[in-house]
């Protein structure tokens, strides 16, 4: 039911090229905006986009949950490397690394940006059917051999996931233990999963190659028809215009006025 809502949503109905542009511009904006508070506002806007386009809180949480560990890791790994301002107050030291406001803001900013990138990428992929990706690639003059291969690869992700699940079960049934805390042991434990996984993927690849040949793919690939058409409509132009304007404003303020730096909002708050 939930997926039905998503398929009827505004963002789903956009042209795949528009969606790709949104993704690209959001990545650029993410690169420019380093301030954690501003990033938080963008994340909130992404959340609203999720919710307005039929995603339930449960679905958003499913994407977010695995990110939390990486979020903490990003925060911890980033803040020691931030150069504090001259004479900046050192709150305390952890393993002789000074903890300063710049460090905290940098760590927080980077961790939040990481989360924002994943959210945006997740949102855009979830609202873009794989068939549309193939069509967008064709419009970009990617040869049909490559675009169809990419389309097939996307549709096979769930199939391969299932195969890997079966392999893990088969090896567990032979006493395999994948729960080791030691990273090297863990990698070694996965060899009995990776080897059959590769073997099965190669076999499947061969089957598919034979199947698409049997369905006439090599008949005349350049002049083949595409049943589904993609077309930029009014709503696409509106979204593109909005995104470009937003991007230009942020780029202008960031480059000429030096806004959205790591300490941008913090400085504003402490100044007053």
């Amino acid at each position, binding site marked *: 039911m939930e997926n039905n809502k998503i398929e009827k949503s505004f963002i789903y109905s956009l042209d795949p090229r528009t969606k790709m542009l949104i993704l690209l511009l959001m990545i650029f904006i993410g690169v420019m905006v380093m301030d954690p508070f501003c990033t938080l506002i963008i994340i909130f806007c992404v959340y609203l986009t999720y919710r307005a386009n039929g995603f339930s809180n449960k679905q958003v949480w499913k994407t977010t949950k695995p990110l939390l560990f990486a979020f903490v890791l990003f925060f911890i790994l980033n803040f020691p490397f931030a150069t504090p301002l001259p004479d900046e107050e050192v709150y305390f030291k952890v393993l002789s690394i000074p903890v300063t406001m710049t460090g905290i803001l940098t760590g927080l900013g980077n961790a939040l940006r990481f989360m924002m990138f994943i959210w945006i990428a997740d949102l855009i992929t979830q609202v873009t059917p794989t068939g549309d990706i193939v069509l967008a690639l064709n419009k970009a003059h990617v040869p049909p051999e490559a675009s169809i291969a990419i389309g097939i690869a996307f549709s096979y992700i769930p199939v391969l996931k299932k195969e890997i699940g*079966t*392999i893990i079960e088969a090896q*567990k049934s032979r006493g*395999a233990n994948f729960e080791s805390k030691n990273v090297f042991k863990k990698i070694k434990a996965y060899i009995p999963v990776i080897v059959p996984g590769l073997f*099965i993927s190669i076999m499947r690849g061969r089957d598919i190659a034979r199947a698409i040949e049997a*369905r006439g*793919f090599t008949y*005349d690939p350049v002049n083949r028809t595409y*049943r*589904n058409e993609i077309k930029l409509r009014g709503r696409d132009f509106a979204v593109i215009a909005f995104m470009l304007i937003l991007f230009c404003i942020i780029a202008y303020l960031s480059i000429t006025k030096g806004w959205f730096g790591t300490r941008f909002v913090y400085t504003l708050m402490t100044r007053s």
Partner: protein
Amino acid sequence: MGELIRFDHVSYTYPGADDPAVDDVSLSINEGEIVLITGPSGAGKTTLCSMLNRIVPESYGGDISGKIFIEGADISQYTIGQMAFISGLLFQDPSGQLTSATVGDEIAFGPENKGLPVDKINSLVDEYIGYVNMQKFIKRPPQALSGGQQQSIVYASVLAMEPEIYILDEPTSNLDPLGSDLVFRLMKKVATDKKKTAIIVEHKLEKIIDMVDRIIIMDKGKIAFNGTPKDVLSHYKELSQIGVEVPQIDQVINRINEEKGYKLPAPITLSEGVNELKSILPEKLPVDAMQAVGRTFKEPRKFDKPIIEVKDLHFYYNPEVEILHGINMDIYDGEFLSIVGQNGSGKTTIVKTFNGLHKPTGGSVIVKGVDTKNATVAKLSRSVGYCFQNPDHQIFSSVVRDELTYGPKNVGMPQEEIDKIVDEVAKMIGIEDILDENPYNLSKGQRQQIAVAAILTMQPDVIVVDEPTTGQDPRQSHQMMDMVKKLNTDYGKTIVVITHDMSIAAEYSDRIITMHNGTIIAQGTPREVFKEEEMLNSSNLEPPQVTRLLKRAGITDPVAIDVDEAMQLLSTMDLKKEA
């Protein structure tokens, strides 16, 4: 109807192979004909079919000689791309043939490749999706559908290319009985409605024989028999030597012909068989003599010591969709048990609770006195070994011996003991000669043996074998089952086989459990279960053909579950002279 396809002294050898896969074949197929090609694995059936759309030799290379003509034209001048729209090919595994993100796009893929206008493509999609009755799935990803549904979609995709010749290469070997019926019914419909030529490669003759005009039997690259079903099936002895199993009704009629010197024609359908049999049965059946013979029928062994106890077992992945609804059953030490049921009936789910891959969400599973809730899969794997259907899901070593030691090492067995067990198991399975080989260089049958051996080295008391005969020819199926049976009788292992092949279940099991929608609907000896035909039908299963033949001919007590038993019952009667 004129000649459509002609093979003129065609031979083909794969690159690197010593012997030809197809050896001097000359053959003619007429327009509108439905031809069944069968024969043991490796007989050259698939190669022959793949030549018709030039995948062989174009994609494989190799040496080809002789000529193939379609509608009088030598096809060596065409590319695979051109041939695809003349000979449409449907393969075994539906999931390996899906190319698109939605069902609608899948069906459109072929017509799009031909560069047809969009309107025409859309009308083809509408026509053929209706043909396979899958309209409501048009926007769904085909990868998410069941095997039978996927094969229907791939079938519709081939149909939408509107080729002159349809080639179906073992289209049902990965499907359950319900899925197979679906595909065969569709084939029949296309053949009748569209008056196209169809070539089907298939091992399960029983389901398809009444739909075909001609049977071609291949063996070692050559054509061994070529004629109408009645002609070919009357050679049941020669066929069984080649490794082709004729339907049980034909085995019975052929054996009557042999023993009595009759000339009854080989029946094609069950009702034909029933009528032939009825025509020679005496007016009054010798009830007492039949009962006396019935008492000599092999009685399954009885066991009473439970090794696995399943009590009110419930299981779900998602609380809203329960898969197992309160299962109660015992598995006895030393028995050979078959669990039957259509796809989705819960067979695999239930056996996965035996070794802890699934933990019960309600009730309990006790293995050798241990509640599976309190034991790890690794610990349970020493009591219950689970052989998955496809050996390629577990084989990863470059040497067979290493593959066999993986399990015991995981559970911390000392090296000395492991070496001893590996040698013992290799002897048990008969793979001593290949212990130092690379499993990936061996045949699928050998890899399957290795997979079973790798489970045996864990020294489990119970061995679960998941669909061991899927996609195999009759001879390979029996080899595999004989090996499993030997583990049961000679080494005392308790065997649980999951299957939908009823004659296999009848032949090997002490007991059969029938599942339907996550519940057990019947359990008992094969004879007890096969008596309940209606109940089996409700789960889309049916008793072996010979059981149905005798029942419909009026011989209901005792129930015969294989051809030998049927012949013993018939031997008590004074059969009438054939009409």
